């Protein structure tokens, strides 16, 4: 199963931006479950894009003004949701922010 881990937090989470992941990345790389990911610059530097009636609409800032914003993401591949939960719970963000686990949509037959 493939899952996207979305690391969320409020503005106080930015304090932790340069703390690293306390051995999490090393353990997960060793286990071979990480398929990619990155930390993100703050939402104040985001640009939101929409095209409506052929018109390009740009907005300064994130797509939703919520208290919690995505600060990073990791794509993982593991056995099942229990393992995904275990992986997410070990990540430092789980200790001060929130991690949303989303299973990836299966690609339609023939695409992969």
């Amino acid at each position, binding site marked *: 199963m493939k899952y996207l881990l979305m690391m969320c937090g409020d503005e106080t989470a930015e304090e932790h931006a340069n703390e690293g992941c306390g051995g999490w990345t090393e353990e997960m790389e060793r286990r071979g479950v990480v398929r990619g990911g990155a930390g993100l610059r703050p939402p104040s530097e985001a640009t939101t894009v929409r095209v409506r009636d052929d018109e390009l609409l740009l907005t300064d800032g994130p797509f939703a003004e919520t208290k919690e914003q995505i600060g990073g993401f990791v794509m993982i591949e593991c*056995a099942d*949701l*229990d393992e995904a939960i275990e992986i997410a719970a070990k990540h430092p963000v789980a200790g001060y922010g929130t991690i949303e686990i989303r*299973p990836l949509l299966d690609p339609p037959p023939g695409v992969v």
Partner: protein
Amino acid sequence: MTFEQLYRQEWGQVVATLIRVTGDWELSEECAQEAFAAALERWPRDGVPDRPGAWLTTTARNKAVDWLRREAVGAAKLKEVAALDHASGQPYDVPDDRLRLMFTCCHPALAMEARVALTLRTLAGLSTAQIARAFLVPEPTMSKRLTRAKQKIQHAGIPYRVPPAHLLPERMPAVLAVLYLLFNEGYSDVVRSSLSSEAIRLARLLVQLMPDEPEAAGLLALMLLHDARRDTRLDADGVLVTLEDQDRTRWDHSLITEGENLLEAALRRGAPGPYQVQAAIAACHASARTAADTDWPQITALYGRLKQTPVVALNRAVAIGMADGPAVGLRLVDDLAAGPLAGYHLLPATRADFLRRLGRFQEAATSYREAIALATTDAERRYLERRLAEVSA
């Protein structure tokens, strides 16, 4: 055994096995349904097979294989079925598909209401309509809730297994809550008493699996202590008999002893939880030789240790009323009348009982009428009507 009883007994096992073999919840339910329909058609003609459960599982399984063959995606899926079939030969922690189904239905990644509904549907075989009635929501809402839960299990990769030992403690409370609900479904309705037996059977398995979990033992003790009184709760005419008037010589004393022993051993672990406290209350009732011997102060104290939900508050009011007199009880019940218990039939029924004990028959009659209008079972309604006739005479 009637077909209805057989359905209740075998449904969970058939669905649980099919889910393990096909990995598809909707398909498993549909094929189980079809197998029961086939049985209903064939058995009156050909006779009931020696092992009806095995017949049903085989029939449902064949239907699943047929269905997968007909489908375009069948080939890949059939391979999967074969692989899963192979996997089922591997040793599991617990050799019971129903337990595996229960832990999966009770996975903490599902909302609590979805866990309960899913267990009642897939394990106990209650219809969506019955579950909707039990939880006071419209049937389409319940149907959506069940579909969403099954889709999440499948698409989010919730594993179909009994969790490994280190995860069991955090998975237990949800399972216990569901089992207790299941027990009560069967306990409040004579027709579906097999649900209680099923809950007890699964609780026994749990206690065997987790001998160090006192709340599992507490729940089993609670169920056994209630179950011991099962046959005395209705008279020959099917009218409810209250605890006070039950023939205590007809209580199942071997079940009571078993319940008391389980509870005692659980309490010795020094981690009392809500199920152990409730079992202790049930044990107070079970060990009283006569109704007058009941240790109401002790029961009052025990209710005080439970989370004070409106229903617990009502039960505590009853215990205080029995200890300190009906006038005190009545005052406490009236305090609860404005709260979330409005419309709950046991509120006017309790009020009527205290008024009757106080000899205020006219007011009691009014409350009995109110309770009768709200009563949910025929046995209760007829008991209340009998009381109403008494105070009206």
